[in-house]
């Protein structure tokens, strides 16, 4: 019996040390590329999840189905809603931060799997602020093709393109839909494609938006892996600080006009609850 237990224990230890080893490799590579923190004692860490829930105020967003009315009185439905989330930073109540500067997420309303992002190995503590970019930073936007993997791989978008080849850069935010009020050469379609990282050779419009949200002392500990539920109010895209009129500009594909739209959607994010 005793021998049996010893063997079991030995096996457990083996497994544990293997896992630890793999974990350490993972951690070191993360520290190199993905995560930066100035929080001391990161001996205990846990995962923080963030859910991005796109909705119309109180109503669920159902693609091509949910009808909304903007402040200009135009009825519309949304058929596509995608946006890049990057440079996520959590700030703890002690003022320390943990950031994920090289992590890029593409949130797509059509793909539930993309709406929950995971931030691994967040040090234990109480966090009072969450911030992130909507878009892809300028450094990444001018980087070598070899560093553009995953959601930044320009070949990865299929027929739901998120990259401008003609004015090279990512489409940070894309919302397309239909409105009976729009009549553009017989079509009722509207398209907002918002990009523009500020230009490489000279200043051009910059639509990278940093969103800062307060957290009510969200706890991370060995036992607590919080899930932060972020709501994006889709109605803000047309009715934020700027009131957009679909009949006036159903097609927005240029960074300059896009600045009105990006200012709007940046104001659409809020924390709903944490569990």
């Amino acid at each position, binding site marked *: 019996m005793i021998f049996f237990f010893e063997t079991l224990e030995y096996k457990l230890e083996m497994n544990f040390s293997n896992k630890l080893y793999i974990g350490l490799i993972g951690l070191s590579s993360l520290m190199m590329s993905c995560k930066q923190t100035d929080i001391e004692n990161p001996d205990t860490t846990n995962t923080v999840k963030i859910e991005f829930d796109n909705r119309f105020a109180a109503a669920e967003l159902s693609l091509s189905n949910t009808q909304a009315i903007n402040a200009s009185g135009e009825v519309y439905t949304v058929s596509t809603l995608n946006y890049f989330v990057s440079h996520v930073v959590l700030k703890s109540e002690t003022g320390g931060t943990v950031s994920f500067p090289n992590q890029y997420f593409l949130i797509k309303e059509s793909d539930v799997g993309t709406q929950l992002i995971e931030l691994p190995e967040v040090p234990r503590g109480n966090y009072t602020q969450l911030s992130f970019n909507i878009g892809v930073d300028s450094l990444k936007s001018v980087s070598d093709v*070899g560093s553009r993997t995953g959601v930044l791989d320009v070949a990865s978008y299929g027929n739901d393109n998120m990259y401008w080849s*003609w*004015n090279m850069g990512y489409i940070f935010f894309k919302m397309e839909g239909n409105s009976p009020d729009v009549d553009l050469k017989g079509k009722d379609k509207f398209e907002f494609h918002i990009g523009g990282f500020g230009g*490489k050779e000279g200043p051009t419009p910059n639509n990278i938006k940093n969103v800062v949200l307060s957290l009510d002392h969200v706890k991370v500990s060995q036992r607590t892996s919080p899930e932060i539920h972020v709501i994006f109010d889709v109605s803000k895209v047309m009715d934020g600080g700027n009131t957009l009129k679909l009949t006036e500009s159903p097609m927005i594909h240029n960074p300059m006009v896009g600045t009105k739209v990006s200012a709007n959607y940046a104001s659409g994010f809020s924390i709903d609850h944490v569990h």
Partner: protein
Amino acid sequence: MACKEPSVILDPLKDRTKLYYQPDNFPNPSYDFSKNPVTEDGFKLGKKLFYDGKLSRDGTIACAECHGQSYAFTHHGHTLSHGIDNAIGNRNAPPIQNTAFMDSFFWDGGVFDLDFFSVAPITNPLEMDEELGNVLDKLKMTKEYPELFEAAYGSSEITTEGFLKALSQFMNSLVSANSKYDKYVRNERGGDFTDSELAGLSVFKTKCASCHGTDLFSDGTYRNNGLQVYDREPDNGRYNITENESDKYKFKVPSLRNIGYTAPYMHDGQFLSLKQVLEHYDNGVYNTDNLDPDLIKGEILGIALSEEEKLGLLAFLNTLNDPTFITNPAFAAP
């Protein structure tokens, strides 16, 4: 002998074995070769891709369709280049040459990294109209491409990076620097200018080189050279990229290398001959917004050119043709 480095470029025939080199009279390359050196296998892969219709939606349009070697990699005889389903593009396809020495690409400079250049024609609905992911999938289905990727990169996996960088390797190998002018300026055999060519060079230096500068014959800037702006669907040029009013109607100053092979001229191919181009500068310049300051002196538009000067310029411009470039079998369809 063994200790002596071979001198760079003296014999054009010898250069045909070199994939990429920096000619003596060229500025330093802009392309970062440390990230993507040109190798024989990478070049071979890039060349195969360049000539392969699989890059287009229906398999009919290869890069070479609008960039034919015989015409210094332009679309011969087309004012605006034609693409898939006979769609007509918005602009005249520029030559692909000396890409390693350029900071930006396209008439409006919308792409600042050669490695991302190829995405545009592949995905443009008027050109090859294909999704990049589909192209890679098609290549994966073949027998030869995984082998070519393996040879080029040590892995048979077909990646976006490997695909785009192979095309860059091929394009960067398209160095054209063996024109009569190059021989003249490098004091090589065959570089003796006629009196007419010398006179043309002299006119060129005083009246053209402020824009068509360096031995690339472009200073890489964007300028409005006074073409007529059509009210219906005007091409705003550089403005489309910067959305800066002061960039309206500006286009990148094109290189003049191989100009004898690359008619028609200008971003919309509106001039069929070099003579017409010279006439434009002499007496056809329109005073549109952001007209280049070099093209307006008080009330006088354009660059005054006498008939004799025009003859000299035409003679000189034809010394910029590089026959070895358009006949080099290394660049031809595999």
